[in-house]
């Protein structure tokens, strides 16, 4: 490993925070900051400049979704991995739309956590079957005739197929074999489903801001 990955851990349960921090440090990551709530997370992020933020959604202060938005606005190259105990569906989906690229339940093993942090850092989305189901559901919702949105994002048939397989617990390797694709192609399809949803979310936010007259001329983003 050329240089240790810089990671920040945000969790309000000290026991959990310590456990995750120790696991990551043992695996050779550089834990540059920890935070117990949203305020600390947002305050410590700029100085610590982590590459990956391991974030619990259920935290006091600005919640996980808001923290995701704030840190990614500050540093778009950072990655957010959601580590959540209670699997609150709406929150997870909101965090992903706000830019988080990974989601892991807390009962995942240490190996899974370490692997997830590595993959998140590499820009590879980390999906649980549950998250894939949510994303799929969100696309379905957006494609319903009632949701009258001219630039709603749509999945290609292949993307839908891949996402359904992720949602039924198949690994990228299994999917690649079943669909006779390369591992990289499967990864790209999954990445695209997220990217389109996040882009749409940004467009929605901007349009909403313009409609509300909130679009201040602060230069190109």
């Amino acid at each position, binding site marked *: 490993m050329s240089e240790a990955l810089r990671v920040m851990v945000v969790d309000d*349960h000290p*026991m*959990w925070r310590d*456990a995750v921090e120790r696991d990551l440090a043992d695996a050779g990551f550089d834990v540059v900051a920890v935070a117990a709530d949203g305020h600390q997370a947002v305050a410590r992020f700029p100085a610590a400049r982590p590459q990956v933020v391991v974030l619990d959604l*259920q935290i006091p202060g600005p919640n996980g979704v808001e923290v995701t938005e704030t840190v990614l606005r500050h540093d778009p190259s950072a990655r957010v991995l959601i580590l959540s*105990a*209670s*699997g609150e*569906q*709406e929150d997870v*989906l909101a965090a992903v739309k706000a830019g988080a690229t990974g989601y892991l*339940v*807390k*009962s*995942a*093993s*240490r190996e899974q956590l370490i692997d997830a942090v590595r993959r998140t850092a590499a820009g590879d989305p980390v999906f649980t*079957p*549950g998250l*894939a*189901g*949510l994303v*799929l*559901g*969100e696309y*379905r*919702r957006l494609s*319903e*005739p009632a949701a009258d949105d001219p630039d709603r994002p749509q999945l290609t048939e292949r993307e839908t197929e891949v996402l*359904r397989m992720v*949602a*039924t*617990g*198949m690994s990228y390797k*299994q999917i690649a*074999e*079943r669909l006779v694709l390369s591992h990289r192609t499967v990864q790209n399809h999954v990445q695209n489903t997220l990217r389109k949803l996040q882009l749409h979310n940004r467009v929605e936010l901007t349009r909403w801001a313009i409609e509300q007259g909130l679009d201040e001329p602060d230069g190109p983003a």
Partner: protein
Amino acid sequence: MLRLVLVANTLGVGLYTADEMVRPALGGVVVAGLVAWSLLVTWAYADASRRTWRLLAVDLAVALVALVLTPVAKPEGFDATLAGFWVMSPMLAWAARAGWRGGLLAGLLVGGTDLLIRDDVTQGTYGNIFLLVVGGPVVGYLVESLQRAAVERDRAEREAAAAAERARLARAVHDGVLQVLSLVQRRGAELGGEAAALGRAAGEQEEALRALIRAQDRVSARGPATRVDLSDALAGLESMSVVVSLPGHAVELDADRAAEVVAALRACLDNVERHAGPDATAWVLLEALPDKVSVSVRDDGPGIVDGRLSEAVADGRLGVSGSIVGRLRDLGGRADLATGPWGTEWTLTLPREAP
């Protein structure tokens, strides 16, 4: 307000009949007294703390005095009393304060006095008095029911608020417990041996608690369910070996159709346990399309060997598979089975509405 309208009427009638009066001065004093009393008592009744029995008694007494003085001020065979319809207001006050009994008592007193002061009772007068005596208890009864309803509503609101607060506190506690259970589960699995068993137990408890929270959330809002959220029903199937993926929104179906889907799904999961072994994991995915609903169940078992299924069908040993297919057909949908090195997958598809 009503009292003020009534007193205005009394004042008008008093002025109009002033020239007929035997003692116009006395009549004027009585009507003026009624006007003054009305203003005072309207102010007094506005605040609940001033609505005392003494005030009510004086109010009623004023009406009775006005009635008693009528034959003195007015000529024999008078039609309207000095107070006129105004006598209604103390009676309504009694009804409002003391329910139907108060209304009846005040009505009888006012009506009785009215009868006593008259030499002859015309049909019109009798009608007015009869309405007065009947009206008192009726208004009193209505007031009582309204008060009961208000008390009932207040209690229901308080209970709802208390339940919401309990649920909020429970969620906070549950979240903490869930965090600890998942930590124990994770550490246990890493340590191995006895700790691993402990970890598994913690994992099972985590699932159980999560199911309980979901069940609790479900009770709170819904009325009698003819339509149910299939997401809720499927979420209840999650366990250590079953992973359920849901869309983030409700998928409503008729309750009996949803029950059939869940039954078919249980059959699929039983199948997984039987054929793929107890260590196999099953994944359930619910998808809601505009006109149909699809539920997929995949296991990571070895899959069904080529030809085994058709062999079984040919032998008439359809068993569980047959029941799954049959259930879905009855719902106007279909059940498809796919198998390969990646496991075995059932896809149950059915239209949202009954055919």
